[in-house]
């Protein structure tokens, strides 16, 4: 199995209010097609690690590799392109643009990538929404959707560019039981049927149990 994501000795410190080392020499590898959960107590550094992996946080020491390509030290513009093409995000909060329809929200990253024509992007976005049972709501304004629907649109947005890896930061954290279950099913389906590489930070033990691999963190280090 090939390795999609790898970290080598990642250290990170916060300097406010005083210097605290939050990550201490994190080494990990994520295999292609695996569904990985990162668990741990609050403050153990799991979210911090995720944002470093997502390339949005560049203030760390060590090396980050995506498909054996060193991402550490690349410029903001290069990293933006990497995020656009290769990484999909699902956050605790949906972060949809209220000014746009559900469909347009899904289309944005693909339009930004610019590989497909507007028509093709529209087609593809609709397909993705349909696969998440959101086809009927494609033209709805994002602000008018329910919480669960919003999160499904956010997942569709993460999927639109066929990313190498999907990262989730507590993707069910803001949802009720029923909707959590549904999002959970979507992730499971993506991992098992579509062989999508997934990395999720979660508090939810049930969610973690369903994944292929659980990484447990404590005090800025990987325990298991």
């Amino acid at each position, binding site marked *: 199995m090939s390795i999609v994501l790898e970290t080598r000795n990642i250290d990170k410190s916060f300097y406010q209010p005083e210097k605290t080392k939050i990550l201490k020499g994190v080494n990990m590898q994520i295999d292609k097609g695996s569904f990985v959960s990162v668990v741990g107590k609050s403050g153990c550094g799991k979210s911090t690690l995720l944002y470093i992996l997502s390339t949005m946080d560049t203030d760390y020491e060590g090396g980050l590799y995506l498909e054996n390509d060193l991402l550490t030290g690349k410029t903001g513009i290069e990293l933006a392109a990497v995020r656009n093409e290769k990484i999909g995000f699902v*956050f605790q909060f949906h972060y949809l643009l209220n000014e746009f329809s559900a469909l347009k929200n899904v289309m944005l990253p693909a339009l930004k990538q610019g590989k497909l024509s507007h028509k093709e992007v529209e087609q593809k976005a609709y397909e993705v929404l349909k696969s998440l049972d959101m086809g009927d709501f494609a033209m709805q304004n994002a602000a008018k959707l329910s919480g669960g629907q919003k999160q499904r649109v956010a997942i569709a947005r993460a999927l639109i560019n066929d990313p190498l890896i999907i990262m989730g930061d507590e993707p069910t954290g803001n949802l009720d039981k029923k909707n959590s279950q549904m999002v959970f099913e979507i992730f499971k389906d993506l991992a098992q049927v579509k062989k999508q590489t997934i990395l999720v930070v979660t508090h939810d033990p049930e969610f973690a149990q369903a994944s292929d691999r659980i990484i447990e963190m404590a005090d800025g280090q990987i325990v298991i």
Partner: protein
Amino acid sequence: MNFLLNVNIAVALLKSRKKQTIIAAVGVMFSITMFITLLGFMNGLNAMLDSLILNRTPHIRLYNELKPAGKQPIEISLNSNHTMHVIQSVKPSSKSLNIRNYQSVLSSVLADERVLGTSPKLSVQVIYNVGPTDMAGVVNGVDLQKEMDLFFFKDYVPEGNPIWAEQIPNSIILGKVAAEKMMAKVGDMITVSGPTGEQLSMKVVGFFQSGIQDFDKVQSYTSLETAQKLMGKNSQYITDLQIKLKDLQAAPQMAKEYAMKYDVDAIDLQTANSQFETGTKIRSIISYAVGITLLIVAGFGIYNILNMMIYEKMDTIAILKATGFSGPDVRMIFLFIAMFIGLSGALLGLVFGFALSSLVDLVPFNVPALPTVTSLPVDYNPKFYIIGAIFGTITSYFAGYFPSRKASQIDPVQIIRGK
């Protein structure tokens, strides 16, 4: 593609804040409107006040002045460092005031490419004989056709036709105030004595009114021939050659050049009316200063709405960055918003500025000195519209620059983790 997408997002953000967008654009519109109107009016006023002087004043006047010789003979003969001389009570030498060799000077000046036209003049000191009393005056013999072509003479003759002075022998266009004193009407005969004592009966064919009382009391106009007759001189006798140039700014330089070349006195308009440019300049500076201040205030309006929008749309910026929009993309989006507000405001401002200028132009305004002016003067020079548009663009660019730079530097991690 990328650009269009960014514009697309910018438009969506603008739509979500319609009211503020409109208010900010109206701010820009108002400032450009006032800028255009103010400059148009100020410059119209400047042009009007300038024309008070410019219309009737030659750019360069060639003439001979009575003055002492520049070098006294003794200076030439005792040209040594070891001698000195004292001459007391130097007096001007007597010389004829006419321009010598007038015909060749005239053809030489007319051959100069920088010259628009010339008009000869002969000023004669006269005495109007009004019944038992006499009144001093000056009769200017001019080529009336040229005077009308170059110096708008017709505008200053409210009654009668200037060309009659050319056609009717021994006729005069009498200063308005002098005419009132003599109780002379058009068609009346008056008696005028020239400097040589020659008396002439002249027919009044019109009135001259410059609006300046002292001037209209003394100055009258007639044809060159009649003036030469009053003077008792031949047809070559001309005291002034008035020159109008294509470019007024060249006058001081050319006046010096002509004085040397033709051995005459030459005075340019700038030297003769040194206060003339000062007022114009100061009025221009004031109107530009007020206009640009208005624009800067409008710029702060754009700056405010953009800053507000960025605070409100932190989430949007964060997610755009998370999904692959780079800092420059985000900056382009917000800069576009600023430019959209600025340019739409500027465009409306140009239209409303023109409309308001036209309204100002309708306000009745009468100046005795400028009979052709009937309403407030407005200058529709496209220059002001271009400057307004350029300044509007620059102001909105800078008003957008700093907020959009801030937006591009927003760290998505802080926003997303903050939730």
